[in-house]
């Protein structure tokens, strides 16, 4: 298509102006937005508010008597529910235990993939595999790895003469570390891709200038790479903490929360409470407590990100 009138705004200098400020009173906008807005309101925002309401009731599944408003009773009960707080503690250990090594490993991999290395394409292709797999399959796969008799982990330990191995997923001491390793493996790709994107936004010239100035690898990382990467790193870490704290399928398949509740993440706990014991109101209260904690994590990281922005 040719443009007969070359308006001044299309000149390259002014190409990056902010989006138009129409809308507001523009009715056409509503026709574009409603098809998505209605399902969002009905099946996402609505249920969220309804869930908060439910946490103040004694709602149970399959009960004939009407649901009653019981105020903060669920939350009072929750306060004294040692099993819930134990599961909460496990959730925090799991979230931090997965997120931190995952970040460090993904950062290392992203830095490597940013280099001009020969097997880079293979690593990139492989890094996608855990991402593409259903979480259920990841869980099944690692059950095969951890299998006490036919698993490759114990066989490798036997070959290396490091003892006879053990039943990793059923041991009280080993179960949580074992599922954490799986969590790290499963979430590495997203983190790597995000960090790689951040790295590719760092200006090359700065790197080269620093190298010419005789800065070593560590100094170049600290003074050039990290400042540019910081916003991406903070966002992805905040999201990872939240996603991991909320995770379900992986651990459900690996251990179902066992042995003895040692891997019972809050989501597994709430799921059992709601759909095994039918305690809808109580489980909704658990959900509210989880939202509160997550909001704090988000707030802290958003504050950190804004502060980083001011420094830059």
């Amino acid at each position, binding site marked *: *298509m040719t443009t*007969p009138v070359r*308006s001044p705004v*299309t000149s390259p200098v002014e*190409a990056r102006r*902010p989006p138009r*400020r129409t*809308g507001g009173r523009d009715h*056409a*906008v509503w026709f*574009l*937005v409603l*098809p*998505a807005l209605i*399902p969002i309101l009905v*099946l*996402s925002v609505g249920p*969220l508010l*309804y*869930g908060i309401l439910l946490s103040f009731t004694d709602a149970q599944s399959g009960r004939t008597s009407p649901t009653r408003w019981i105020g903060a009773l669920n939350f009072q009960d929750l306060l004294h529910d040692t099993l819930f707080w134990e599961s909460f503690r496990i959730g925090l250990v799991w979230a931090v235990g997965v997120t931190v090594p995952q970040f460090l490993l993904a950062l*290392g991999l992203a830095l*490597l993939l940013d280099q001009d290395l*020969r*097997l880079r394409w293979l*690593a990139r292709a*492989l890094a*996608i595999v*855990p*991402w*593409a797999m*259903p*979480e259920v*399959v990841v869980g*099944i796969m690692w*059950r*095969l*790895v951890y299998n006490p008799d036919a*698993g*490759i982990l114990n*066989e490798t330990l036997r070959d290396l003469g490091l003892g006879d191995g053990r039943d990793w997923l*059923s041991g009280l001491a080993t179960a949580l570390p074992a599922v954490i390793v799986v969590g790290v*493996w499963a979430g590495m790709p997203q983190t790597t*891709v995000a960090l790689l994107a951040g790295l590719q*936004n760092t200006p090359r010239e700065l790197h080269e200038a620093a190298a010419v100035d005789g800065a070593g690898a560590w100094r170049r990382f600290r003074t050039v790479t990290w400042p540019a990467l910081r916003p991406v790193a903070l966002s992805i870490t905040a999201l990872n903490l*939240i996603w991991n704290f*909320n995770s*379900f*399928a992986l651990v459900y*398949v690996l251990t179902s929360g066992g042995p003895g509740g040692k891997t019972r993440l*809050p*989501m597994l706990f709430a*799921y059992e409470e*709601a759909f095994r014991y039918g305690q809808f109101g109580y489980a*909704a209260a658990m*959900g*509210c407590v*989880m*939202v509160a904690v*997550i909001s704090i994590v*988000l707030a802290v990281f958003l504050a950190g990100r804004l502060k980083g922005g001011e420094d830059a």
Partner: protein
Amino acid sequence: MRTRPAARAGQYAALLAYLIFLAFPFLWLLSTAFKPPRELGSLHPTWIPRHPTLANFRQAFEEQPLLHAALNSLLAALGAAVVAVLVATPMAYVMARHRTRLARAASGWVVVSQAFPFVLIIIPLFLVLKRLRLIDSLAGLTLVYVVWSLPFALWMLVGYVRAVPAELEEAAAVDGAGRVRTLVSVTAPLLAPGIAATALFAFVTAWNEFFFALVLLKSPGNQTLPVVLTHFIGAEGVADLGPLAAAAFLATLPSLVVFALLQRRITQGLIAGAVKS
């Protein structure tokens, strides 16, 4: 930039370690899927099956209704992908091009919805769908998947829309094209690859999803592939390893193919959304 040989060797060693860490569980799954029972029972498992067999695959299909479950998954994932993209594209367009309060609220929702613990959503959703008589039905699950994949679809699509220069649309308007014609004949064709990538990504997430399917589908005839896969693991956690591995491998194939085809587009889309939001 020049790197010293020692550093280079270190880099290759690290890369190799990563490759092994990323690949070995998957290779082990493959190897287990093709092993005959005798080799699976052996106390000294081998990496490569000595007598590879397809018996595990046959047994997997005999033990569980895999084909039926795959069909259920396919229907739910296709439905979710198509509907999600149909409703998300116009909204993403508004979010990218107009700075209204609504667009800003939608962007906020995209971020916040990433943080929902699903348990707070699933209980009311369960009650709502029950009232609508959509519980234990693929249609109900598909609806949930549409809403569930919207944040990511919007995230990706907003990035793709921003990549289309607004100047092109203005030029069309100057040429006398109406708003609808501009969207259909100028913007849509440029967006098409991004829309396709978003749809495939939504397909994969729905194909892989487990939690909603576990809660919302009760009758075995309705269950999706991930739920049926867990039936291979018995109540006591004892599993028939060969068929389990075979079925798990088959369930991964569609998503692997999609990701292999789309790897670059998907990462670009995610990056575009991430960098510009």
